[in-house]
């Protein structure tokens, strides 16, 4: 497995764990309120800090364990994979965000729109890493 593929696995896993953690907090707050909870800055900051710290630690460990590959720029195949994955993840994000916008037009619930848009961004980022892994395996 190349360094970039391993990085994609690690980052995808971190984002999945962080996303589940964040939406669990939101679900608990919403259950307590009896309606969709407004976004809590503390939850968002906790999510960001978790992602940043774990990814820095993970990338540092990966970098130290494979110094040469970590420092090497992406080759032509890897660049194509990164661009393709980025392109496809854009569709995932757009689908989620547009769905949120349409729901808002019906429900006028800004909190729901926030969570859907934030969730779409998370899912699209996870999808980007998933697409990268799939393309690395497929041999594009």
């Amino acid at each position, binding site marked *: 497995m190349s360094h970039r593929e391993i990085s994609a696995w690690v980052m995808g896993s971190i984002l999945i764990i962080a996303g589940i953690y964040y939406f669990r907090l939101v679900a608990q707050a919403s259950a307590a309120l009896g309606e969709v909870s407004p976004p809590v800055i503390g939850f968002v900051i906790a999510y960001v800090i978790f992602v940043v710290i774990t990814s820095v630690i993970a990338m540092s460990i990966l970098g130290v364990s494979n110094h040469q590959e970590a420092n090497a720029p992406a080759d032509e195949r890897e660049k194509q994979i990164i*661009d393709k994955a*980025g392109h496809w993840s*854009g569709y995932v*994000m*757009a689908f989620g965000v547009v769905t949120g916008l349409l729901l*808002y037009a019906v429900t006028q619930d800004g909190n729901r729109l926030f969570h859907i848009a934030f969730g779409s961004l998370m899912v699209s980022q996870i999808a980007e890493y998933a697409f990268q892994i799939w393309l690395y395996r497929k041999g594009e």
Partner: protein
Amino acid sequence: MSFWEKGYLAVAAILVLAGGGYFYTIWQQSITLESVAPPSWGTFGVYLLVITVLTLSSVAVLGRVQTINNRTSDIDEMINLKSRATASHVTSAAVYASLVWFLFHGDGSLLFHSTVGALIVGELCLCMLQVFNYNRAY
């Protein structure tokens, strides 16, 4: 200039005009209401229809005056991928900015309009990148 470059420039012009028109309308409504105007199917639907009709018309007009080159070469595919990947990241950043704004202001209508703006900005970025990368490669 190729068909594709003209097409992307036309789409960018349409987005700027229609997007500007949409936000001007929202601004006018907000002034009347003295708060951010909530989205309405009428306003949003009209501008979406305008964008769709103008885009299809421009493609039809451009297609009649210029041969549409079949875009299957490797370099075209690379330009397309690169432009779309960058544009999707720009859109994500713009949506994040809208969400952060909502965190501090809590106005759902403002979040709606800023998110629509983010999507328009992303599309504009895509059009500009396509033209830029297309020119750079040739």
